[in-house]
């Protein structure tokens, strides 16, 4: 049985590599056309009405969720996966508290953008501003990114010197601390009551909003996917820059990297800060679209889900992690019968992938080679634990 899975998996990977090689062999203009077509499909997705493909829509089943809404969630999860991939896949640091950054992003727009937040009320009082005043959406975006980056550095500064598995547990604790603070610090966050009236690009949610309303999710999806594309481009540039090479070097052998003049701590901290900012951006979009947040939306299970997206998809490979995110967000919505069991399936998927194919469904080629090297070493030294 296991052998059958293994050989089927090997054929699948063979096909994937063949497709990848053919794509790279295409002339530039054909690649360009392919990309444009792909982008067009991405933007067309929420309108999906091609006969024969409508079964893909989540509202094609009874009681299914709004299709564009599900796509929006997929998009912000892809954003999370790309951010976490910088930390886990590129820099090789396991972060189990990513939900903390997501929550900080969501709370930034809530605390500064909503008239119902204690922070905005305090500012209104201190500076004699009218009770309708709040920070505009675009500035909240800026605040969210700055705050998450700062919190990434604050978390990373003391903990990044720890060994990898300790770091993972400490970050798990960090995610819980953020949630508990959001729940208990009622003077700052309204506690379990939550914060409502979180603004969108057109200001606080109201019936007058023409584009970004509460009901129609399509514009939100288009907004999110635009952010995703920009971030994919930026992270790709980063990956192939000096910083990206430094991350790979640190991941593969920290001591060797240090000897070669790459200061591991500095680059790990960068990875943490950039990953945190992407998580914050995603949380920002989530809060803004939801218009209401409370601490129960940020529990530790989501951190595990985020890690599952990255490792199942293929850590280190942006296409892989995006696919992982889309699968894990979309499948439970479309196949409702299994929605109750989704966490079980995610857990099983993590275990199976780690045992059978630790490099993930669509592996990064470099990562696959690293793991193969280690396995070969194991055969040379059978006595080693």
């Amino acid at each position, binding site marked *: 049985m296991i052998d059958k899975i293994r050989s089927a998996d090997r054929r699948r990977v063979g096909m994937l590599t063949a497709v990848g090689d053919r794509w790279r062999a295409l002339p530039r203009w054909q690649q360009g056309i392919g990309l444009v077509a792909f982008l067009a499909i991405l933007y067309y997705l929420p309108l999906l009405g091609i006969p024969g493909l409508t079964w893909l829509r989540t509202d094609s089943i009874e009681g299914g969720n709004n299709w564009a809404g599900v796509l929006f969630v997929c998009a912000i999860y892809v954003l999370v996966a790309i951010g976490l991939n910088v930390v886990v896949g590129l820099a090789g640091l396991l972060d189990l508290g990513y939900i903390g950054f997501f929550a900080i992003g969501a709370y930034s727009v809530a605390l500064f953008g909503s008239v119902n937040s204690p922070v905005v009320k305090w500012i209104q009082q201190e500076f004699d501003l009218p009770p309708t005043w709040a920070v505009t959406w675009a500035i909240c975006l800026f605040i969210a990114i700055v705050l998450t980056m700062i919190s990434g550095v604050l978390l990373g500064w003391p903990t990044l010197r720890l060994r990898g598995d*300790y770091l993972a547990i400490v970050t798990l604790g*960090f995610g819980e601390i953020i949630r*508990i603070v959001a729940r208990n610090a009622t003077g700052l966050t309204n506690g379990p009551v939550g914060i409502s009236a979180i603004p969108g690009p057109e200001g606080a949610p109201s019936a007058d909003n023409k584009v970004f309303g509460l009901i129609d999710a399509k514009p939100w999806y288009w907004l999110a996917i635009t952010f995703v594309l920009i971030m994919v481009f930026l992270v790709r540039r980063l990956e192939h820059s000096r910083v990206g090479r430094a991350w790979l070097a640190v991941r593969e052998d920290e001591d060797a990297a240090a000897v070669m003049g790459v200061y591991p701590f500095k680059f790990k901290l960068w990875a943490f800060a950039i990953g945190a900012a992407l998580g914050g951006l995603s949380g920002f979009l989530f809060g803004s679209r939801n218009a209401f947040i409370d601490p129960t939306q940020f529990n530790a*299970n989501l951190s595990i889900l985020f890690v599952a997206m990255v490792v199942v998809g293929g850590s280190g490979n942006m296409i892989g992690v995006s696919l992982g995110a889309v699968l894990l967000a979309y499948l439970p919505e479309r196949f409702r019968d299994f929605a109750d069991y989704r966490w079980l399936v995610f*857990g099983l998927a993590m275990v199976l992938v780690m045992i059978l194919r630790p490099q993930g469904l669509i592996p990064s080629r470099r990562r696959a080679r690293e*793991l193969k090297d280690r396995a070969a070493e*194991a055969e040379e030294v059978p*006595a*080693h634990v």
Partner: protein
Amino acid sequence: MHFDELIGHLGQHTVDGLSKGAIYALIALGYTLVYGVLRLINFAHSEVFMVGTFAVLILWNQLGVENNPPIGQAILFLVLGLLVAAVASGGTALALERIAYRPLRRKNAPPLIFLITAIGLSLVFVELFGQVLPKLLGGVLPAAFGRPRQIVGMPTIIEQKTLFTIGNTAITNIQLIVLIAAVAMMALLDWFINRTRYGRGVRAVAQNPETAALMGVNQERVIMLIFVLGGIMAGAAALLWSMRFGFTQNSIGFVLGLKAFTAAVLGGIGNLRGALLGGLFLGIVEVYGATLFASNWEDVIAFVVLIVVLMFRPTGLLGESLGRARA
């Protein structure tokens, strides 16, 4: 800040903390044993404990235990509970090792892959007891699996009574039993590791796996042994938990596991006596902290302790290493 409350009832808070920490310490032993030998954080150990509490629950339900049984029966129920919990938890720990960790060890997988696997396993167990078993066994064992993810109460085996008072510190019978039972289990484990032939094998593999293998120690057997031992200790913790708190749920492992791990790190992971010290210390710190601030900050205190210890003394209070625990 409630300084007066803390100082005024310092003795009471210390006793409460000790009896709380004793349970952390028993669970911490599982982390410490596995880490001492394999240098790996068995994240799924919290679920080993959770399975133990369910085993106790099902046993007591099947026996038809009523609240406050006569003392003879109560002792019988507790002893049976210990046996069943130890078998269930030890078996779960062993299954984890055989199914998940052994194939990874063969491939010399990096530590993070072990950790991710363990997290996946933990999720699988939580869902198994929260979602799958209620569907399958809901009709057969309604008390344990009536509704998905429910909190289930257990019968009171021993009624809580104040045994004696010193100053304004009241010590209850349950606190005393928990403390004594936990320390006895740990003394037993300490004796086993330090004085027996099998224990010598464990220490040898922890010190140097290659040399131990050359000296004829069966490494795989030692690894299985430490998982089972850790599981048995978690089973004992599960029984004490059931007796003291009288409820369980599929998700109780998560926070408790993190705290037990904190206790293990605090005492020096890989160090058996360190786990005891770390557990008791963490229990006290938590109760003091909850009194000083408010009880809803309790979980934060444990995490802050973990971060501070890892930053300033990552080897813990007593230092790491199972091998050098006693020469």
